[in-house]
């Protein structure tokens, strides 16, 4: 029991000291506190009251211990604890932002900014809604977002004067910043509005090769031109590009859209000052390269000879079939649209007609085009542009089969893609061609500026015996030539 004068510590500090001393072995009761009436009452309750004469300015140190040694040690520890000073151990800056809203809050309000959402689809709407509420556009890479949520987001975005790219939007370029799967494309006068990722990559790469380049590539998600969504983002993207000084021409790139929506988009586009051309895939307009060439004509530019590496020009064995193994969905569609008139129905996991659906048998006989990027084949694994495993297995399967075939592949370069796709593909092609006569045709989608460099990849693939084309349409036609089925 001690009373000390001239010592003050605040009650929190003293409660901490009491707790520390109370935890010592051999100490049964402790109270270290200013000798206020309340604390004296507490001490009395513990049988540790001072004999009297205490005043509230004094520090009361009351300890009950088993023996003198424990008491002395406890009192020494009281002094040590009172003398200790806290040290800063961290900083408030370490608090992470948990939501897009919190992250956007930290940015300057007048500078351009974009949110990217790639969280599981069930949770994407809340993050995207944060961006809209903050007056920012958002790219939603997530798939599995219910279509009614997509519509609600795009309506809210329209009201707020911002754009929702996606959901399931894998490709965009905004003022030269490549987002997701996108290529290093020179800046230029053409703005793309794309409901198709690999379609946008094909078109933007060809424009780069033609020396033209793009202003922006605004992805809108594969469902935007469906009846349900009604082109909400496409219309907003067109309106934005119309006011963008860097954009002189616009190309709308899409898989087959809903007819009513096409009409609405065309009507809207007709009211804009910027000329709008469409590159929407259909049986009547099956060719993205042709759409690019038409745009070049609009611009008064010459159509270049699209880069290629001629293969060994070997003819396919009699009765050979087309085996198209794709990573890009739009490119697979384009190949089927171009080849079907010559080959008849092509079976696929993403067929042009429902009765051509492959089911789960990806090694069926006959003409096949498989889209390995389809959602059903990417569950639990990375996109085939990153992880080639499934497609390499399929190539080995074609080689092992008795069926004579021509192999048609796409290889997509750029940000987000495999840093060296030829590195994995070349040994697989060599092994396949060692087993049997197997002509290989590759649509190599990329630019010279891509991290993988178009010509370096093309040379490696050509050295493995593949014919390589920068245009998927050209590659498909070449494969048809080899099959003796050109149209």
């Amino acid at each position, binding site marked *: 029991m001690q009373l000390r004068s001239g010592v003050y510590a605040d009650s929190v500090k003293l409660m901490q000291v009491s707790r520390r001393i109370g935890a010592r072995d051999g100490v049964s009761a402790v*109270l270290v506190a200013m000798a206020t009436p309340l604390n004296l009452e*507490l*001490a009395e309750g513990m049988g540790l009251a001072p004999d009297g004469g205490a005043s509230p300015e004094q520090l009361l140190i009351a300890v009950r211990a088993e023996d003198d040694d424990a008491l002395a040690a406890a009192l020494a520890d009281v002094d040590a604890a009172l003398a200790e000073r806290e040290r800063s151990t961290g900083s408030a800056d370490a608090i992470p932002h948990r939501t897009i809203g919190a992250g956007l809050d930290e940015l300057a309000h007048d500078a*351009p900014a974009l949110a990217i959402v790639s969280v599981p689809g069930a949770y994407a709407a809340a993050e995207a809604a944060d961006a809209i509420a903050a007056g920012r556009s958002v790219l939603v890479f997530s798939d599995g977002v219910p279509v009614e949520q997509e519509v609600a987001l795009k309506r809210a975005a329209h009201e707020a004067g911002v754009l929702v790219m996606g959901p399931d939007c894998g490709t965009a370029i905004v003022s030269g910043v490549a*987002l997701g799967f996108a290529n290093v494309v020179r800046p230029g006068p053409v703005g793309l509005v794309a409901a198709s990722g690999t379609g946008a990559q094909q078109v933007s790469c060809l424009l780069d090769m033609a020396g033209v380049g793009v202003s922006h590539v605004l992805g809108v998600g594969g469902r935007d031109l469906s009846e349900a969504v009604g082109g909400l983002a496409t219309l907003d993207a067109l309106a934005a590009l119309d006011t963008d000084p*860097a954009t002189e021409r616009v190309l709308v790139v899409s898989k087959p859209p809903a007819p009513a929506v096409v009409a609405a988009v065309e009507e809207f586009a007709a009211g804009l000052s910027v000329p709008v051309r469409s590159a929407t895939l259909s049986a009547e307009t099956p060719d993205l390269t042709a759409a690019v060439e038409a745009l070049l004509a609009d611009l008064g530019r010459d159509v270049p000879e699209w880069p290629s590496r001629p293969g060994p020009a070997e003819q396919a064995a009699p009765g050979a079939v087309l085996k198209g193994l794709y990573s890009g969905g739009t490119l697979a569609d384009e190949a089927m649209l171009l080849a079907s008139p010559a080959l008849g129905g092509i079976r696929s996991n993403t067929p042009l007609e429902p009765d051509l659906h492959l089911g789960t048998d990806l090694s069926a006989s006959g003409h096949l085009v498989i889209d390995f990027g389809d959602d059903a084949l990417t569950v639990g694994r990375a996109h085939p542009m990153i992880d080639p495993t499934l497609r390499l297995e399929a190539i080995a399967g074609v080689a092992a089969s008795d069926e004579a075939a021509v192999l048609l592949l796409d290889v997509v370069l750029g940000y*987000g893609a495999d840093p060296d796709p030829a590195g994995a593909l070349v040994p697989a092609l060599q092994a396949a061609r060692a087993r049997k006569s197997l002509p290989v045709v590759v649509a190599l989608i990329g630019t010279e500026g891509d991290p993988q460099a178009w010509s370096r990849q093309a040379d490696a693939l050509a050295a493995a015996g593949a014919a390589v084309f920068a245009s998927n349409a050209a590659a498909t036609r070449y494969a048809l030539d080899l099959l003796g089925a050109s149209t």
Partner: protein
Amino acid sequence: MSLGNLLSGPPAIVAAGVDVFSEALRAQGADVHDVDWRPPGFGDPADLAALALDARRAAANRTAVERLLAAGSVLVDVRPAREVIGLTDRVLLHSGPPLTWEAASGPMRGALVGACLFEGWAADVEEAEILLSTGAVALDPCHHHRTVGPMAGVTSPSMWMWCLEDPVTGGQAFCNLNEGLGKVLRMGAFNEEVQTRLRWMRDVLGPVLSTAVRGSIDAGNDPLDVKGVLAQMLQMGDEGHNRNRAGSLMALRELSPAIVASGAPSSDIADVLRFIGGNEHFFLNLGMPTAKLALDAARNVPGSTMLTVMSRNGTEFGIQTAGTGDRWFTGPANTPVGLFLGDFGPDDANPDIGDSAIMETYGVGGFAMAAAPAIVRFVGGTVPDALATTERMYQLTLTENPAMAIPIMGFRGSPTGIDVLKVARTGWLPQINTGMAGRIAGTGQVGAGLVQPPQQCFEQALAALAEEARTA
């Protein structure tokens, strides 16, 4: 359509989700800010999306926040509960969501028994327990009467109430007078010492304060701006819930002239001034109804996901939201973690109790922890921990209250307007600073510390708000 400047130059990127994107963007030299996104702490994904996409939500929350921020609080009167809220004999108010005697915890029972003795409804504890257990004395939450009460919050007809008014809406809120620390009714103590103090408060303190407050206003003085005192105390090391030292001294300073002028015997005046000056939490009972006024102003805004009440009765924690009116969402109250008086320990502490979490609901208390770093040491924390707590609460709230500036945060307004949706999405629960009552009736205060609400309250509120959004 300019897309918010999007196309005017290379955009800064804020990314949530897989980080492969961000790496590719950094490789291009883009300005990338990664969000530490986690799956929400709770809630059905469809409910979260329904609320996130509710077209009413942004405007509704803006309305709720504007009302909260606009509300003022002035002290207009001190009157007995019987007169103020028409509290009749044989009715006691208590803190938190609705409660039965059977479910009441030790300190709540102690306070209820103490109030029956104080009112003279029972001659002894046994008699009081019979009245309470048979329903002869009815229980009702303070919150159902525009009233708040710290800890047990037990308010009986003869207790004097602070009467506060919001000059903006004319709304009113009430709270009884603070008894001080240690063995006090609100902490569940009810012995003769408690009864003596309650009688003195009834017979001396209440009348003196009443005369002083009315007299000052009648003399043409402005009523005491309680919100102004609350704002100032945040600049002086208080957070307005567990630390009210500066606020109590300022209230004493403001009230003293009128108390002295009340005409009461000088010995009574000396007792009153000594009592107020000796009670570090005297201001809490003025701060709480100030917060209550602001949150009541934000009630009944369809589509708003903002909390209007967080409150505990010692058994359950209850919340209400602006979008769901008077409906309670409850879960079992947690037990605070903190420091203990004397040789009390964690086993002596009762689960969380009191309406005082109205302070956090208002954006002070635990939310303004950075203003009062002393508080965080209750759980062995450091000054940076205090800053981090407030920093984290900004991600749970809809706005910053410019009237409640926190000096060390660069005078940033305190994080205000707790959003049920943000609580779910961050997985962070509100931080509450609180006193601790002994779990045995009659014990009184055993310590003080920090606590969080049970997640169940927020789960129920989220589901109810989503349901309401779907049918709206």
